[in-house]
């Protein structure tokens, strides 16, 4: 680095020189003003127009009187006073003529200037006021928009609170229902109707209703045969070899599927109407109690046990017994599948589950898994089926372009809550627990 050059010091000197020049009047006040104003014009681009108008107008106001007495001076030291006197004499001589000539010009200048003075600045000020008023209106508008959104926000909050309250009420009712079911179950157990196997004979009890009542009930509430076939078709692959026993075969949809897939299968059901209907369709079905039937079968004789929408008709102990019996009668590699309403979906309790008088107890998927595992099944899988259609669920709200960040955050929370409610209220309607005998 060159020793002689030190920028910090040089800049100090530069600043000092500028200060001295300004103090000594090297730059006139007018010059400083114009230079300072020029910088403003560059930095504040919009202001340039207005200050330029003022500047021109000020200059015109200074110079309009072209007949004004000029300042006579000279910069020469010795000849100066002489020259000034001469100039003054000349001025006195020519003044009347020049004044005559200039009078009309001065008149014109003054009139023009008066016009400009009365017109330019007020128009400029009006423009400025107009802009300011526009700005104010914009602000007011933005405030109004803000208020409207705040109101919408409050409304949404209120609706959210109402929804939460309704859910709480629902949850309260649900636990009441659960307690009632438990009480009924205890009462039932006390009467001895559900003693442990091998004794129990459990059947849907419809009292004095006609024999085909449950068939008609199923036709109305279970879903059409074709729907059930569609749903159960997905289970076919789990049963590659027969014989398959369909416990509680109902209208025989799964048996039909097995027949079409050339899998040996037969069914049992306690309902006479169902059995008659199946037989008419040429299916091999017997009216029998599942426990009695299974106990009669030779051990290790079945390729599969299929049991859809049955176990919820059983008291818990009967379910355990059914699983243990099935395990005993299945060949190694054989599969037990139990499909039942999914109690992890709360809507099931306002519809599918309690619509059927013969349902006794919902079975939680993890309880079902536990029962199968305890009975000796391996690879126990829980498969959730029959989801509710999206349009039945709470729909997420879309953010709108004009929302503010906190409103969007609020929306995210609301949608999150919807998603959680959807998970609880409209989870899959049913599940199948599937176990394989090793």
């Amino acid at each position, binding site marked *: *680095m*060159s020793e*002689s*050059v*030190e*920028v*910090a010091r*040089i*800049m100090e000197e*530069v*600043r000092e*020189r*500028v200060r001295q*020049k*300004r103090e000594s009047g090297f*730059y006139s006040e007018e*010059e400083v003003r114009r*230079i300072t104003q*020029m*910088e403003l*014009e*560059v*930095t504040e*681009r919009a202001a340039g127009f207005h200050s330029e108008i003022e500047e021109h107008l000020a200059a015109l106001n200074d110079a309009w009187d072209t007949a004004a007495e000029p300042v006579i001076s000279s910069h020469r030291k010795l000849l100066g006073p002489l020259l000034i006197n001469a100039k003054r004499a000349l001025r006195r001589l020519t003044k009347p003529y020049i004044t005559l000539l200039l009078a009309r010009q001065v008149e014109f200048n003054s009139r023009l200037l008066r016009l400009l003075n009365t017109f330019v600045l007020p128009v400029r000020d009006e423009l400025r006021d107009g802009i300011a008023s526009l700005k104010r209106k914009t602000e007011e508008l933005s405030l109004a928009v803000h208020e409207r959104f705040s109101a919408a926000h409050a409304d949404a909050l209120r609706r959210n609170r109402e929804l939460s309250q309704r859910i709480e009420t629902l949850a309260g009712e649900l636990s009441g229902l659960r307690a009632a079911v438990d009480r009924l179950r205890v009462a039932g157990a006390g009467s001895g109707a559900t003693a442990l196997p091998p004794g129990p004979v459990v059947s849907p009890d419809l009292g004095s209703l006609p024999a085909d009542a449950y068939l008609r009930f199923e036709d109305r509430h279970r879903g059409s045969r074709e729907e059930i076939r569609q749903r159960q078709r997905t289970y076919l692959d789990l049963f590659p070899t027969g014989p398959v026993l369909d416990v509680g075969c109902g209208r025989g949809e799964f048996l039909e599927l097995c027949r079409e897939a050339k899998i040996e299968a037969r069914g049992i059901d306690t309902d006479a109407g169902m059995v008659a209907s199946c037989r008419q369709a040429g299916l091999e079905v017997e009216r029998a109690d599942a426990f009695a039937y299974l106990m009669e079968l030779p051990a290790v004789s079945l390729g599969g046990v299929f049991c859809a929408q049955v176990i919820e008709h059983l008291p818990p102990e009967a379910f355990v017994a059914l699983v243990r019996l099935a395990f005993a009668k299945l060949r190694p590699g054989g599969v037990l599948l139990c499909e039942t309403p999914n109690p992890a979906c709360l809507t099931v309790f306002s519809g599918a589950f309690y619509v059927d008088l013969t349902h006794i107890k919902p079975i939680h998927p993890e309880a079902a898994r536990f029962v199968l595992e305890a009975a000796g099944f391996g690879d126990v899988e829980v498969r959730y089926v029959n989801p509710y259609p999206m349009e039945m669920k709470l729909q997420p709200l879309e953010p709108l*372009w*004009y*929302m*503010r*960040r906190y409103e969007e955050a609020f929306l995210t929370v609301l949608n999150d809550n919807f998603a959680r409610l959807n998970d609880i209220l409209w989870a899959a309607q049913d599940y199948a627990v599937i176990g394989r005998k090793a």
Partner: protein
Amino acid sequence: MTTRGPETLAFVIPWFGPRIPGGAEADCRDAARALAARGVPVEILTTCARDHASEWSDHHPEGLTEEIGLPVRRFKVRPGDRGCYAGLNERLLGGEQLASWDERDFVANSIHSDDLYTYLAAERERYWYAFIPYCFGTTWEGVLTAPDRALLIACLHDEPYARLAATERILRRARAVCFHAPAERALSEALAGPAPDRFFVVGGGVDTGIAGNPDRFRAKYGVHEPFLLYAGRKAPEKNTPLLVEYYARYRVTHPTTPLKLVLIGSESVRVPERLGRDVLDLGFVPIEDKYDAYAAAVALCQPSLLESFSIVMMEAWLCGTPSIVHAACAVTREHCLASNGGLFFADYFEFVEVVELLLADAAFRRALAGNGRAYVLANYTWDRVAANYLDVLGRLGARLP
């Protein structure tokens, strides 16, 4: 545990091309090439857009190509409301503080590529991403896509974009932020708080092999009088109009001066008619002519307040010419003081003094330029800057060969 292969350093930039003007664009090209030349696996990840000035749409085909010796991957541009962006940009540059929802629209309608973000997220294990510069969608959103793998080469200036919440967010979230100068780091600390373990001054690299021929410039462009040179984009945000105004004023207060003003670079600036013969706007000139212009000038004048590095100062010094900068720009002023290679002005009166000083004394000009040159060679060679980048990557635990 499996041993994984070496990682790649990917520069993520809104647009890429060998001739796109702009400091960040040039810095990206040069840094990528310098690191590749030193054995670092380097890629460019960018959009299909052509450049800042063109419509932000798919100009190039998407996919992998090789350009200037670098693998370049382009991704489709997300359509956006450019009118909305332009309107908000104007308000922002007009000094307005944008409301949060306006800022969100501004950021959302900047340049983006969803395919790029998907790629950044999916491939983060094998890359380190160097986002450059800070003020576009690809950086605002890209950093948040993979913050743990993100180096931000900010190119930060004290300008309205720097004060957006989106900028503060990436300054806070990026794994490391690299700066060209200590003043840029200080600005970043003012905006997002100090972060000594994440903020690194790496400097900017300069091609130190350049030289200019003053006679060739004078002959080719017919400029035989002494002149001040402005090099770069001519725009209000670069403070070019201020330089033109100061020069115009100087012509009035110094009517006999032979001093001219020569402008080179893209875009244009309004020049008063009466200065038609004294201000020469040469537009975009070949790079050799730029170097020749540096060499022929009395001084390079860099009035911009928004510099994160100012490569033109470095180039001018290498070509033997001192710089005049605006005292209010911390970065350029710092360069002048640290190098003893340039002077600065805070107002017109200081501008006049500084110009007069330089005009009067050729030896003084040479001494300043010599100091500047030494400063560049000591701090801003690519060897030095590449080593700084490698040091940052090493601290982050990057597996580079």
